């Protein structure tokens, strides 16, 4: 155990986490250079494009230190977005230390702080690392001062490096060995293994990433998941080298994987404790939470023929994404689809992109909703996350909606703007304090429904990207809800209905009409767009008829180009859904949620 170090890297997007991880892998000669692929830890398209890691990956680096000994350095990768903060906290719990990686030219950025706090809450030892010292614009001294004075970290521990050139990387590895404590735990006690991640493999079933806190596990053992009592026989245990490498056993302090023929990742929940059937531990490890879907939206294939494909794609996706839930749904406008639950809006977007890209189904998402509690006059309580199930208003006694506590970190100068935004969004019980000079940590209780209504985009825009945002679920509070319907040429498009607070309903209705006017292309007839509440029209607008759409000139040299343009137009039309006789583009369904026009 003395020769193990478990750590993760906390960094703002683009500060060089992936690059540094790659350098470490090279330095530890885990793989030959030929095998070395850039951005090894971060290998999914969507994640790379957005610069966020959603599915974390772990790697075990064998490092020969200057003291002549070889250490196993386990680098646990963490996702970097608020929707996944629970996953981050589980990953951090499996470590004793963390590198706080900061770009020498950018300095400390707000978003790094939320994760730094998480690490501190978990009593992790922190090594500050200043990266990109090769940049001409680098100001390492200034950043070092920030780290010492603003963050209150030990300046003598600061490491300077260039992940790009490799300079300083060995010193970081050395610092990990020297300054991070080795794990504690007793290999002879009852098994307690913390699940911090799970991936699905088509051949082996679920690959469970664990930190062994106490005890020992080996192939042949029968394990039990403490949260639900299910039991499996262990087929293999091992370490995450470049490929998985089987080991005879894993014991206290180690980070590795377990294969036990688990069919879906749903059975392996991050934060859950694994123990042995025959010698169970007394108590599960603390901190386990059931994943909570807080945002719900229906997915429909644009072409109704794709329904079966969508079903298959969702099932496949769920193998690897335990946080996604879905069940059948249907809509008068859109036909058959699925009602899905997500961790947050980013999770929703990631799922949409993955379905479209990996499974090649074009989708329509309906306006996302949170889950409301309706108390009816007959004394029953129902949960509603779908506007289609809005009960008869005459029978509603009261409604409750979920509230969150938002924690927002901002440079002081944005205080006013952020306060205003929160008030616009029905915020309550605001408070703030200064965690460091010039920075404000602002907390506010907000209806979750207001947060999924493009709150994060607005926050980023009013704070010019300096605002970081984190939230936790609080409770349900009394609300006053109405159902806002959208009519296109006189027909209600059920997929565009939303549940909104009565006070906001008029503004939302107007806004939805305006956004739809932007999104729905002109067609051969005039299109009326109306917003209505309980049959009363509260807003209306029109998309005027297409008067002219013809290419003036087409000669020999143009024929191919013109044909391709028409083909493109035809493709575009395929990405629209015909409701009544109106073609509504896919983008229109989410556009009503954007508060600003593009």
């Amino acid at each position: 155990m003395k020769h193990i170090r478990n750590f993760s890297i906390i960094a703002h997007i683009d500060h060089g986490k992936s690059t540094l991880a790659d350098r470490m892998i090279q330095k530890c000669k885990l793989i030959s250079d030929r095998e070395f692929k850039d951005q090894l830890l971060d290998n999914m398209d969507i994640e790379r494009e957005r610069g966020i890691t959603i599915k974390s990956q772990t790697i075990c680096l064998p490092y020969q230190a200057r003291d002549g000994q070889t250490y196993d350095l386990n680098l646990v990768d963490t996702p970097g977005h608020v929707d996944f903060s629970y996953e981050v906290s589980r990953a951090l719990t499996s470590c004793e230390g963390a590198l706080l990686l900061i770009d020498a030219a950018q300095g400390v950025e707000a978003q790094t702080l939320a994760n730094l706090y998480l690490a501190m809450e978990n009593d992790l030892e922190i090594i500050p690392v200043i990266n990109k010292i090769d940049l001409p614009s680098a100001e390492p001294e200034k950043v070092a001062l920030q780290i010492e004075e603003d963050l209150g970290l030990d300046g003598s521990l600061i490491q300077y490096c260039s992940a790009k050139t490799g300079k300083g990387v060995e010193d970081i590895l050395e610092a990990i060995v020297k300054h991070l404590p080795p794990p504690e735990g007793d290999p002879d006690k009852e098994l307690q293994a913390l699940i911090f991640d799970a991936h699905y493999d088509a051949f082996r079933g679920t690959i469970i990433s664990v930190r062994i806190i106490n005890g020992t596990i080996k192939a042949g053992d029968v394990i039990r998941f403490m949260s639900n009592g299910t039991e499996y026989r262990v087929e293999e245990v091992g370490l995450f080298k470049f490929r998985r490498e089987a080991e005879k056993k894993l014991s206290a302090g180690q980070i590795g994987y377990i294969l036990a023929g688990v069919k879906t990742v749903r059975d392996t929940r991050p934060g859950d404790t694994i123990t042995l059937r025959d010698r169970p531990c007394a108590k599960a490890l603390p901190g386990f939470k059931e994943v909570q879907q807080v945002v719900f939206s229906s997915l429909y294939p644009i072409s109704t023929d794709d329904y079966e494909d969508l079903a298959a794609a969702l099932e496949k996706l769920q193998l690897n994404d335990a946080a996604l839930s879905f069940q059948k749904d249907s809509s008068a406008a859109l036909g058959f689809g699925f009602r899905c639950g997500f961790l947050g809006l980013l999770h929703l977007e990631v799922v949409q992109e993955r379905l479209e890209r990996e499974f090649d189904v074009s989708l329509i998402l309906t306006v996302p909703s949170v889950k409301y509690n309706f108390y009816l006059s007959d004394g029953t309580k129902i949960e509603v996350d779908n506007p289609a199930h809005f009960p008869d208003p005459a029978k509603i006694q009261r409604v409750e909606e979920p509230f969150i506590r938002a924690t927002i970190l901002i440079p002081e100068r944005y205080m006013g703007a952020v306060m205003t935004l929160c008030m616009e969004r029905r915020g309550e019980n605001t408070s703030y304090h200064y965690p460091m000079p010039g920075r404000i940590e602002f907390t506010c209780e907000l209806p979750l429904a207001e947060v999924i209504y493009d709150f994060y985009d607005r926050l980023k825009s009013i704070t010019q990207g300096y605002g970081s945002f984190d939230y936790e679920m609080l409770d349900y509070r009394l609300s006053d809800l109405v159902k806002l319907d959208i009519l296109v040429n006189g027909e209600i498009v059920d997929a565009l209905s939303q549940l909104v607070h009565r006070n906001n309903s008029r503004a939302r209705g107007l806004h939805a009409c305006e956004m739809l006017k932007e999104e729905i292309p002109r067609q051969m007839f005039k299109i009326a767009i109306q917003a209505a509440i309980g049959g009363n029209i509260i807003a209306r607008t029109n998309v005027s008829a297409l008067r002219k759409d013809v290419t003036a000139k087409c000669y020999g040299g143009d024929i191919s180009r013109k044909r391709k343009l028409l083909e493109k137009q035809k493709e575009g039309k395929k990405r629209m859904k015909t409701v009544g006789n109106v073609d509504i583009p896919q983008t229109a369904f989410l556009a009503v949620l954007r508060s600003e026009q593009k």
Partner: protein
Amino acid sequence: MAGLYLHIPFCSSKCPYCSFVSFPGMEQVMPRYARAVESELATLVRQEQETPIETVFAGGGTPTILPTELLIPLFDAIRKKFSLAAEAEISIEANPGTVTRESLARLRQAGINRISLGIQSFNDSELGKLGRRYRTGVARQAVMAAKAAGFDNLSIDLIYGVPGQSPATWRQTLEESLSYVPQHLSCYQLTIEDGTPFAEMMERGDLDLPGEEDIEMMDEMTVEVCRSAGLRHYEISNFARPGRECRHNINYWRNGDYYAVGSGAVSCISGRRQRRTEDPVAYCRMVENGRSPVIEEENLDRETSFRESVVIGMRMLTGISRADLVARYGMDVQDCYGGLLDRLQDGGLVELSPTHLRLTDYGRRVANTVLAELV
């Protein structure tokens, strides 16, 4: 039938709306270019020796920016290479300011029997907006010179929807054009092409294009004024006295065969479409080195080619001949589109007769929307 297209990629200046393969300030290159075109001509392989070429079209750019000493030999070379039909249509595009009565007479003498004058407008302020170098006086002289030189198959090219234009000024341009009794008139609505200075101006909101209603009035006026002058509307943007339709272009719209020489030129022979490099100097170099200037080739499968023939053919007011399509592809439009045609007919967008498929007047206004269904 087959045609031959010759591209001359030079202009005296570049108009701010133009996306054609045309370059100003290349006078130095012209002689070399003319030689290269002759060399490329020599390498062409004639597909069906027996059938003569029916149309030749020299377009640009501005073909008449080439001195006649360079231009006429190209036509001679064409005649030497190919047998031209007795009544072949031999057209040239010309711009005001690049022609004189004498130069035109020489071209006519050399056997060129049709001229298409790029007048664009008979309004000085509009010519200015379009970035044209000449003004109406020179434009008038060009028309008169063409007539005096003996061109009895004269086309005038006009642009409408010009920044600052009104239906009234367009009517003046139309009427003055028709007063010269041309055999043919092309009226193109200004298209803002990506990458042109006009596109940038539009992005900035600096282009005061006429509104939709004005454009609609101009559209209707164009058809009306041409009709009363005896010019039949035969393609979306083209009008002609009966029998004077541009045969070369009709061949394009019928998706027929055509040879091509010159930079940026596209040929299409037996379903094989080839595009030549646009850069005139690169073109010269490739030809001089004995390499083919073709940089892109496309071979369409039967269905794509069928659909393409339909969508280009529908540009013509007579539409497409169903018998022709069956003869060519062994397929009728009803086999290909089925119920779609019924829907389009119900929407008043197309007309299907026993012999033809065509756009209705309304369908023609929104042609792209309709053709995007048929492509």
